[in-house]
């Protein structure tokens, strides 16, 4: 469809993976689209379509090229290899095996391109140097791995010419938990078999697109869709009139978005219309034919503009006076007294940046309605349940009338933590047309959809005693929220609540204001709300340490959180080996020798951080039911329903277990660690565990992959469900073995007596007997966070968690003092994640976090023009680090045991992001002699600061010392309150596996 006068179809022969395909193509068709849509070789991924991300890399005559930059019709006579062509007769190529075993695969979306580029390299040069590997893979962006494991996989590929592979990181004490087994989905991802939402195709399927506003603030006077409707191939066009009069969002108290704008648009990109057509090309053209007449309204683009007297108001609601969406006023301890006790007070302001998750897989949705009116939605999401819940809310359907399917997800980082306009528009278009509708964001759409990190404007004041003891901390933050609430209420609270978890802060004041601006809404991004304040705090602490003459490691040790402590804002910290992370990072990096001894241009810096291991409360209060039909319940400081739920069913022959759990696998490895824990608790090999996460019909709800909750909460549910199976099985075995069930234990597929190894039977045999006698062997489990989490003040729920992670990173880098350019050399990271379930995957999370956060510190920023449009909505100018930018990363895990976690485990994925930004900025300050306090710390800003410093020095004006010394009032020794509930043991005393 959409054939213009100048369109020519021609029949060509394409030779792909050794097979010849006769295919009819138009001259304007791109090889990538022909491979995916006509040959159904969906292992070739679509990431940016402009030759930057490399997800679409294929080999043409043995050399990697971006298939998005090549016309299909000119490829006759060439040999094309896609990822599907690497496997020969069922045997993987050694480079595929190496990627699988070395942990080089996470979300898997960059994997096909990476593997093909690597394959071409080792064909040319079987022993490539590090630089050669980096050059060869420089065209593929990876958002998950930090490239460390990918480098290792390419270097070690020869090892996988034969089969045997060991796992050097393994903990000895458990059979499965603690072992660095390869990800369960790695082989599918290494071969192109793994299917992501956009890879699905259904008969009769239509393609949809959304039209976004071209003005930052305006009234829709008229929408003329007639030309779009008249375009051949267009099946349906919808506007605000066609969508429910029901607002949606994330925080129930502030649902403020319509599926399509009804009257007002509030940012460039705000959704105004959607189209379904027979193919993507026609849908794209149709969107361009929709004419929207706007009455442009004045707009505001910064919090300062937005809160000014007389500023245009984005939302006409008394609750949002002065465009303030959320305000937080928290006071803990006695802030005035705290500053009176200080000997040294230092104030500084910091500015964050607009960063964007930019997962490699663009958001995608496919909706279809079954006969009888049941909605089935395939979606690329981190939170299948919240999508389920929100569809029910918008369409006023019981949850049972909706099924959400989550295929493989190519990374999220918070950007896929909410229901998207794609989910909702696809559902509406599918209902209106009676056909399945697929909608996929372009890379540009992703930036316009937004939901990235809030840019925060921070004013901090810190008081310390001469010895570095913190006496008071005062924080005032304006968060640039964009046009809608999204996660923003929570963000504003997190920005304050997580500050006292790392250090003992006896007196703390936080003022947080999230402000509406005419830009895409900001949401939750890795470390939700905390990375920028954490960056600022770590910088300020380092400034203070240097100014009062205390080593930055020592000032942290002095104030570091201890295990079993209730913080000043009433968060219960159980396991906490923060001090051990400080000691390990300092030791392993050679901190003491380096800190004051590096030449100009070289720097070493430190930062610390940590995060919740699962939010203590669900996003909505009350029961799991359609939100519009229930009344808000009073907050009772306890979970209304279990946040994670699992069912373990044993196959009837006893040889396998199926684990049903709605947890979201988004690349972080949830399926693998949950399966490991299931196997461990059942006492069977992990190969016998099969996990089903993707279907809300068959798996009980799990709230999803946000707030770093899956390992701890999902894990606890899995352990409970598995334990219930074992509980039912042991009496059967006891009967067979003629002993008491209480002496029996399960291990590696056997049920044996703890007292006598000769009393033992096959696990599967016992399971068969159980089935024969009793029917299905099923265990169920659930996890509710502990009751009573948090204090009794407004907003106390945010920041609560069963457990908290801690970590320290030390960054070494070089600054080119003539240009300001930063070259990252090395990170030495140490993390307290409790007991690691899969150490290699823990390292993978840390490595990915280091590179993402280092990129946020140095180069990432969504830039807006004076009309509120994004200048760089692409991966060419929104700078995600490449393999050539990535530093060497030495990751360490300290011994720790979390009593609330399964096998003592807690989170790592978000917490490991938090130390990085401060460490990078500190290292730059040490290398260049200047602090840059607004993110990103670009070469230009560094050079400007250097020039200002030289100017001051030439004129003989010394840099003013920003801190103030005073005679501090004597202070009482700080006595932290103890935690409520379980207490963490000293990890040295824990004997795992018993």
């Amino acid at each position, binding site marked *: 469809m959409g054939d213009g006068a100048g369109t020519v179809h021609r029949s060509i022969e394409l030779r792909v993976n050794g097979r010849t395909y006769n295919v009819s193509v*138009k*001259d*304007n068709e791109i090889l990538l689209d022909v491979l995916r849509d006509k040959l159904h070789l969906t292992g070739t991924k679509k990431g940016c379509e402009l*030759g930057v991300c490399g997800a679409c890399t294929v080999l043409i005559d043995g050399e990697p090229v971006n298939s998005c*930059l090549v016309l299909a019709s000119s490829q006759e006579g060439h040999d094309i290899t896609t990822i599907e062509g690497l496997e020969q007769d069922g045997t993987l190529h050694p480079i595929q095996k190496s990627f699988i075993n070395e942990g080089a695969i996470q979300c898997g979306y960059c994997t096909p391109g990476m593997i093909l*580029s690597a394959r071409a390299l080792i064909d040319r040069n079987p022993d490539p140097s590090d630089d050669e590997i980096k050059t060869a893979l420089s*065209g593929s962006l990876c958002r998950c791995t930090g490239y460390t494991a990918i480098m290792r996989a390419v270097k070690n590929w020869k090892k996988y010419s034969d089969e045997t592979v060991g796992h050097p990181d393994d903990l000895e004490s458990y059979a499965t938990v603690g072992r660095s087994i390869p990800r369960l989905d790695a082989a599918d991802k290494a071969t192109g078999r793994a299917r992501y939402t956009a890879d699905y195709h259904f008969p009769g399927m239509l393609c949809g697109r959304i039209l976004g506003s071209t003005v930052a603030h305006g009234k829709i006077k008229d929408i003329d869709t007639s030309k779009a409707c008249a375009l051949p191939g267009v099946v349906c066009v919808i506007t605000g009139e066609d969508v429910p009069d029901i607002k949606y969002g994330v925080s129930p108290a502030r649902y403020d978005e319509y599926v399509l704008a009804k009257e007002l648009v509030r940012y460039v990109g705000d959704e105004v219309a959607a189209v379904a057509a027979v193919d993507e090309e026609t849908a794209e053209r149709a969107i361009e034919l929709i004419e929207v007449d706007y009455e442009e309204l004045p707009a505001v683009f910064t919090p300062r503009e937005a809160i000014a007297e007389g500023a245009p108001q984005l939302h006409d609601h008394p609750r949002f006076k002065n465009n303030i969406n959320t305000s937080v006023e928290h006071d803990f301890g006695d802030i005035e007294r705290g500053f009176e006790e200080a000997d040294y007070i230092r104030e500084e302001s910091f500015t964050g940046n607009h960063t964007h998750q930019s997962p490699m897989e663009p958001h995608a949705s496919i909706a279809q309605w079954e006969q009888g009116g049941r909605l089935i939605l395939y979606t690329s999401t981190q939170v299948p349940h919240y999508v389920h819940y929100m569809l029910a809310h918008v369409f006023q359907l019981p949850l049972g009338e909706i099924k959400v399917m989550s295929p493989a997800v190519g990374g999220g980082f918070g950007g896929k933590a909410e229901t998207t306009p794609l989910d909702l528009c696809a559902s509406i278009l599918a209902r209106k047309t009676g056909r399945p509708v697929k909608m996929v964001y372009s890379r540009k759409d992703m930036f316009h959809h937004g939901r990235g990190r809030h840019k925060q404007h921070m004013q901090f004041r810190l008081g310390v005693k001469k010895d570095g003891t913190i006496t008071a901390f005062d924080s005032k933050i304006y968060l640039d929220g964009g046009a809608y609430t999204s996660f923003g209420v929570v963000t504003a609270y997190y920005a304050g609540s997580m500050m006292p978890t790392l250090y003992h802060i006896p007196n703390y004041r936080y003022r947080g204001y999230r402000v509406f601006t005419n830009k895409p809404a900001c949401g939750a991004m890795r470390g939700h709300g905390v990375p920028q304040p954490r960056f600022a705090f770590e910088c300020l602490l380092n400034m203070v340490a240097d100014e009062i003459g205390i080593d930055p490691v020592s000032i942290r040790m002095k104030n570091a959180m201890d295990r079993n402590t209730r913080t000043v804002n009433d968060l219960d910290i159980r396991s906490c080996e923060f001090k051990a992370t400080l000691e390990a990072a300092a030791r392993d990096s050679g901190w003491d020798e380096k800190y004051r001894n590096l030449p100009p241009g070289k720097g070493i810096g430190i930062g610390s951080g940590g995060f919740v291991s699962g939010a203590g409360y669900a996003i909505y209060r009350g029961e799991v039911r359609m939100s519009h039909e229930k009344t808000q319940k009073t907050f009772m400081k306890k979970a209304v329903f279990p946040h994670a739920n699992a069912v373990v069913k044993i196959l009837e022959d006893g040889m396998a277990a199926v684990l049903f759990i709605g947890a979201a696998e988004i690349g972080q490895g949830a399926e693998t660690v949950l399966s490991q824990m299931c196997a461990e608790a059942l006492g069977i090999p992990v190969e016998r565990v099969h996990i089903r996460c993707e279907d809300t019909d068959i798996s009980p709800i799990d709230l999803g992959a946000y707030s770093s909750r899956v390992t701890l909460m999902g894990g606890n549910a899995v352990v409970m469900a598995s334990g219930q199976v074992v509980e039912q099985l042991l009496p059967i075995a006891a009967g067979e073995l003629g002993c008491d069930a209480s002496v029996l234990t399960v291990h590696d597929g056997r049920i044996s007596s703890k007292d006598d190894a000769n009393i033992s039977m096959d696990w599967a045999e016992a399971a068969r007997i159980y089935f024969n006698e009793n029917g299905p062997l099923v265990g169920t489990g659930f996890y509710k966070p502990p009751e009573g989490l948090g204090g009794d003040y407004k907003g106390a729920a945010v920041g609560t968690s069963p457990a908290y992670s801690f970590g320290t990173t030390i960054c070494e880098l070089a600054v080119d003092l003539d240009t300001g350019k930063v070259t990252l050399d090395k990170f030495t990271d140490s993390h307290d994640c409790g007991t690691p379930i899969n150490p290699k995957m823990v390292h993978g999370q840390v490595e990915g976090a280091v590179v993402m956060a280092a990129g946020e510190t140095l180069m990432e920023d969504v830039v807006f023009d004076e009309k509120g449009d994004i200048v760089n909505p692409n991966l060419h100018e929104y700078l995600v680090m490449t393999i050539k*930018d990535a530093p060497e990363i030495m990751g360490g895990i300290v011994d720790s045991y979390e009593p609330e976690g399964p096998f003592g485990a807690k989170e790592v994925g978000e917490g490991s992001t938090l130390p990085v930004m401060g460490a990078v900025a500190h290292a730059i300050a040490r290398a260049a002699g200047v602090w840059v306090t607004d993110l990103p710390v*670009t070469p230009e800003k560094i050079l400007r600061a250097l020039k200002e410093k030289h100017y001051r020095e030439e004129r003989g004006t010394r840099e003013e010392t920003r801190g103030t010394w005073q005679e501090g009032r004597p202070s009482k020794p700080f006595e932290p309150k103890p935690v409520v509930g379980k207490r963490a043991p000293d990890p040295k005393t824990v004997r795992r596996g018993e």
Partner: protein
Amino acid sequence: MRLPDIVLHEPETIAEACDLLNEYCPRARVLAGGTDILVDLKQGRITGVERLVSLKRISGLDSIDETGDAIRIGALVTLNQASRDRNIVKYFPALIDALESMAAYPVRNIATVAGNIAGAVPSSDLAPFFIVAGGEAVLSSGDGERSVRIEDYFLGPRQTVCGECEIMTHLVLPKPGPATGMSYHKFMLREANALAVAGVGAMLALKVGPADTILESRVALTAVAPKPVIARDAAARLEGKSPSPEAFEEAGRIARCEAKPITDIRGTDEYRANLVEVLTVRALNDALERARSGGA
């Protein structure tokens, strides 16, 4: 993100290609690697193009040949092909520096050397090298051809002296003389897949003796003016002098004044001017080292 409707022509001779351009201009464009034009078409940055005339089937355009005192690079030679070529490696290491700074490896398997010149974007990475190396473009109109020095080739952003119906078939580089060194220094915001914030190419030809003298010098700049430019005054100041840090720093200061940078997302005009000064000194130092170590 789809391309607009286009018709692809794959002529087998230059003459046929030029005829097609004659027939369909201005709605026809030449397609070599396509990494610029396809991206521009996808993004709607250029409109009104209905036909692409591919050079792919024209013989003789996909090789690098040594012809007496020159090296000829065909219009279909890709960036990676050039950076592996024996003659390029031998005579023009500075070209390899420039090639390897561009885009990323897979794109360099598609993008062509000639395309980077012909596209005439203000941040062309190859232009400074071709200018300082004294390169020329061969433009063919089907019934005849002409040579244009690269330093005279650019008129403005994406504007060149190449006629709408002319095709750049080759780039020609004279082999460097004795004791001649060239270099290219690029500043970018990440290590791959990034455009130049500023780039400087330099050439120094020395009279070797107990005290070196600069016989000839050239400096060219990219991403700091509407088109790649030659920094004549900076280079002129060096000729006849002996190479020294002071002389290079002076040349850097002059080059800075010859740049006409703008402010955009990659950097402010002032920062770019700074970079020109720094990169000029670095490029001259590299060129000097290469000149002293036997040339090229």
